[in-house]
C-alpha cells in the first residue's frame, strides 16, 4: 500500500503556479520523499526529491514541513505540457535499489 495521501485532481490555467500537497504521516527517519509525473503514453519521470526543508531544481520546488509529515510540490508557471499525473512517493532506497510504491497520484489538468 502507498504510504502517501494526495488530492485526486487539480485544475490550473497556463501561467499559474500549481501546488500539489502530499501527506505522509508515518514517514520514517530513513525515508526520502520523491516526486514523479507521468504523461499519457509515457513512463513516469522523476521531478524532484528531498529529505527536509526546501529543495529546488530547474523544474520544481519541494517544501517539506518541519515534522516531515507533509510536503508540497510547487510548479511555477505551468504550461499545457505540465498536464500529468503527479505521484508522491516515500521510500528508503537502501542497498540494491528499492521498488517504488505508487499511489493513485494527483491528476493535474491545465487549461489555456
Amino acid at each position, binding site marked *: 500500500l502507498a504510504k502517501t495521501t494526495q488530492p485526486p485532481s487539480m485544475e490550473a490555467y497556463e501561467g499559474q503556479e500549481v501546488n500539489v500537497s502530499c501527506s505522509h504521516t508515518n514517514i520514517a527517519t530513513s525515508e526520502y520523499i520523491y516526486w514523479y509525473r507521468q504523461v499519457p503514453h509515457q513512463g*513516469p519521470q522523476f521531478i524532484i526529491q528531498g529529505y527536509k526543508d526546501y529543495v529546488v531544481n530547474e523544474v520544481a520546488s519541494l517544501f517539506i514541513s518541519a515534522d516531515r509529515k507533509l510536503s508540497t510540490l510547487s510548479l511555477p508557471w505551468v504550461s499545457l505540457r505540465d498536464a500529468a499525473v503527479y505521484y508522491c512517493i516515500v521510500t528508503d532506497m537502501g542497498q540494491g*535499489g528499492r521498488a*517504488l510504491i505508487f499511489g493513485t497520484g494527483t491528476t493535474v489538468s491545465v487549461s489555456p
Partner: protein
Amino acid sequence: ETAVFQTPNYHVTQVGNEVSFNCKQTLGHDTMYWYKQDSKKLLKIMFSYNNKQLIVNETVPRRFSPQSSDKAHLNLRIKSVEPEDSAVYLCASSTGGARQDTQYFGPGTRLLVL
C-alpha cells in the same frame, strides 16, 4: 532523452500464447525493474533485479518470469497469457546503491490479450 528502451511498443495476442518483452538501459545502472500499470492506471512493482538478487513481488503469478543476460538487459516473459494480463508493462532502472536513488522509466509495452 530516452535511456531505457522497450520493445515492442504494442503487442496483441490470444489467451494461452507466450510473449516476451525486451528492455535495455544505456545508463550503466546496476538495478532494473518491471512494473505493471493496469487499466485503472495503478502502477505496481513486479520484479526488481540486480546482478546479485532477484526480488519478486509475491502477488505476481508464476507465468511471469524475468530474464537477464547482463545488467543492461532485463526481459519479461509471460508463459501463457490470460485476459487480466492486458496492461502496460514498464521497465525502469536505477543505480541501486545510493540512498537518493532515481529510477528512469521506459515508455512501456502495451499488451492486449484477446
